């Protein structure tokens, strides 16, 4: 009897561990990635950096994203999360973008006239 209890307990522990590992890595490992594309699509090129360096005034970047519309599109939600991370400086773009003093808005602006969920 106690063996079954031990087994069931271990299974429950494994389940918890599974969720814990992934939730943890979602936040902790946000930036860790390798860009394998030949054209280095996800890494900022030297040219782009040079251009941006040449600009004196601060650049603000606003990111609009509607969670409610993206309910059925986890791929878009994932993409949005990555854009957000890039803006925060946690991606192949390094801390370059935050230094351009970006501001991000991840909720739809109150003024936006979109149909709610």
């Amino acid at each position, binding site marked *: 009897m106690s063996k079954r209890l031990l087994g069931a307990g271990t299974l429950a522990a494994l389940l918890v561990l599974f969720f814990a590992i992934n939730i943890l890595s979602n936040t902790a490992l946000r930036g860790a990635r*390798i860009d394998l594309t030949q054209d280095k699509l996800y890494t900022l090129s030297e040219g782009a950096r040079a251009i941006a360096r040449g600009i004196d005034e601060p650049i603000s970047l606003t990111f609009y994203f509607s969670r409610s519309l993206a309910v059925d599109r986890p791929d878009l939600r994932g993409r949005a999360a990555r854009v957000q991370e890039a803006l925060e400086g946690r991606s192949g773009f390094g801390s370059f973008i935050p230094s351009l003093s970006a501001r991000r808005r991840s909720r739809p602006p109150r003024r936006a006239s979109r149909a709610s969920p």
Partner: protein
Amino acid sequence: MLRGLRAVFLRELTGYFITPVAYVFIVIFLVMAGVFTFQLGRWFQAEQADLRAFFDAHPWLYLFLIPALSMRLWAEERKSGTIELLLTLPVSRSAAVIGKFLAAWAFAVLALTLTFPVWITVNYLGNPDNGVILASYLGSALMAGGFLAVGSLMSAITNSQVIAFILSLVACFAFLLAGYSPVLEFFQGWAPQGIVDAIAGFSFLTHFQTISRGELAARDLVFFGSVIGVFLGATGVVIEMKKGQ
């Protein structure tokens, strides 16, 4: 701790090639991959030098083919009685579980590798981003491993291969579409939004798609790694629990 791993791994792997099952599986996989890519995916008409259509098909191919592979992992041993032989040999439980899994995974990866003519074709016809293709193959191999680990647990739970197949199919389907309507709706009614969002993050499809865009992110690797680790661990526990019977 991993006593006997090599012997079990080699035995299982050669076992795949003794029977015609292996060859049938490979042929079906290659043919279906071709059908999905060239016909359903309209690859030629799209005139794009990438393998998008090809890799898009993989999750769906795996959904049906991998449970067919994994169902024999443990249910067969129980049915034929060889499990009594295996579990009384000086092979640690972990070695048995991991050895069988690795053999099945190696076989799946072999089937995947045999699709290389498609890669050669796309490079001959155009100039694709081979980094993206490499990443996609890696993602596909990891996804296959994930499906296999789920299938391994289902196979350990039951004595019947048929039931193992069905259970795996359902479980893999749930994992595949974790971020999408059917699965989400199941949870949306009663679970808090935080949980629902978290569940969405466990979709095989989204993780695979991320990798196959060309970026190898640590957390995608961790995801598939954790699926494999947790499900193989659970397989071991279930095997041990069923020893009481």
